[in-house]
């Protein structure tokens, strides 16, 4: 190859004059910061659907919902720090369509934004129970405003049903019961987070919630919201049983926010489909919860809804926008804090994996477990042992 040929696999070699980032939460902000950290001095526009400056989501179901933090503390950057990033920040401007050929995004108010590179970081929208529109007392928890509305409703002595036995439902139940709210956790799994963490760990989680006074009504799905007039009164289970409630919070997953891309020609399949460089089309990238990317090491496409993914993926996308050719192949990671238990999870455990203790002792309430698939370690979980879990990640999951 002579010097004028671009290296194989690379996109454009020219640095874009203008990067348009659609989505102004963790992943969008991280993309902007990563561009600046790499010395990019071009124009960046950050388009956000909410009116809030970028804020952090993990504290919502914990410190913000409990009231131990003021909402301001979830801000990702101070006003001065945002200013220093020298971006055109457009908040309260939901994107409604994308023209791929011209890389132009139209916002809800009709204004248009064109970028030489476009980064899609629109996140995900929580799933809701049918019939929830306009019904008081039924909530989701995705954004800051959702959290503050739910918090208003969580008065001590009230009856709360949390619909959803995954990580978010567990965190909300833990926070609520500690506020003195009568809390029931409902969902289809035998024990909380069983599909994510396997039977042994899920059983420990069940015991943990039970010990703190959460009523667990698991093993049967919730089929409908019960309401009297425009006020929620409970939820109906697949068995026909009704769980009465003053407050219902629905936390059974989120759908990637791709509906605005319908008709754009980009491929969506439970997320915006990207290659291993997180590229959906020439000059169009995706980061964060919305991105389904080809994971070269796992040999399949994945979509990761977790906090560290938002940053790490943004760093790779920023590099690729500036002419590098980096695959994104992270070791997935999430953490959850419930009561005083800190759980760290590296890799993607599945319920069929064999589990063994590699540090600590479950009897003492502190241990690290390894999950094995076909005799090889595939994931690591720490239960009140964050440092040691990270060390086992390095030892078991990082291939030299």
């Amino acid at each position: 190859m002579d010097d004028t040929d671009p290296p194989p696999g690379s996109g454009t070699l020219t640095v874009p004059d203008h990067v348009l980032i659609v989505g102004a939460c963790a992943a969008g902000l991280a993309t902007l910061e990563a561009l600046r950290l790499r010395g990019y001095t071009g124009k960046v526009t950050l388009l956000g659907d909410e009116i809030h400056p970028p804020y952090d989501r993990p504290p919502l179901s914990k410190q913000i919902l409990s009231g131990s933090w003021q909402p301001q503390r979830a801000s990702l950057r101070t006003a001065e720090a945002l200013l220093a990033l020298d971006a055109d920040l457009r908040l309260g401007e939901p994107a409604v369509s994308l023209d791929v050929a011209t890389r132009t995004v139209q916002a809800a108010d009709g204004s248009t934004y064109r970028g030489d590179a476009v980064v899609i970081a629109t996140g995900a929208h929580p799933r809701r129970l049918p019939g929830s529109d306009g019904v008081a007392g039924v909530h989701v928890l995705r954004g800051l405003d959702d959290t503050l509305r739910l918090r208003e409703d969580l008065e001590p002595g009230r009856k709360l049903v949390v619909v959803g036995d995954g990580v978010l439902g567990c965190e909300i139940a833990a926070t609520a019961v500690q506020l003195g709210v009568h809390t029931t956790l409902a969902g289809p799994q035998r024990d909380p987070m069983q599909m994510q963490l396997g039977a042994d760990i899920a059983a420990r989680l069940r015991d943990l919630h039970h010990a703190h006074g959460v009523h667990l009504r698991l093993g049967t799905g919730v089929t409908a919201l019960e309401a009297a007039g425009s006020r929620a009164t409970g939820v109906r289970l697949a068995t026909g049983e009704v769980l009465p409630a003053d407050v219902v919070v629905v936390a059974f997953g989120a759908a990637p926010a791709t509906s605005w891309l319908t008709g754009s020609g980009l491929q969506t399949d439970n997320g915006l489909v990207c290659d291993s460089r997180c590229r959906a089309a020439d000059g169009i990238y995706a980061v964060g919860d919305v991105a389904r990317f080809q994971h070269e090491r796992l040999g399949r496409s994945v979509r990761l809804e977790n906090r560290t993914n938002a940053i790490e993926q943004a760093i790779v996308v920023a590099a690729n926008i500036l002419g590098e050719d980096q695959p994104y192949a992270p070791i997935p990671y999430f953490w959850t804090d419930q009561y005083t238990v800190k759980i760290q999870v590296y890799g993607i455990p599945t319920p069929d994996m064999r589990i063994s203790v590699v540090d600590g002792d479950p009897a003492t309430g502190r241990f690290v477990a390894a999950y094995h698939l076909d005799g090889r370690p595939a994931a690591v979980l720490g239960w009140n042992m964050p440092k040691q879990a990270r060390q086992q990640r390095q030892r078991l999951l990082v291939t030299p």
Partner: protein
Amino acid sequence: MKVFVDQDKCVAAGSCVTAAEDVFDQREEDGVVVLLNPNPPAALANAVREAAAVCPAMAIELHE
């Protein structure tokens, strides 16, 4: 470069240690960040910047 850490914000992810293990460590008992070197040498500056960038709790502040 001067490094500051906020142990109250820290969520014990340990991303900083993976990025710059000569500058950051974690407490044995709860994984909260420990600052080993608040004035890292220039050779580590990029690793420390990466550590601050990847922290999921914005618990690392740099003054350069």
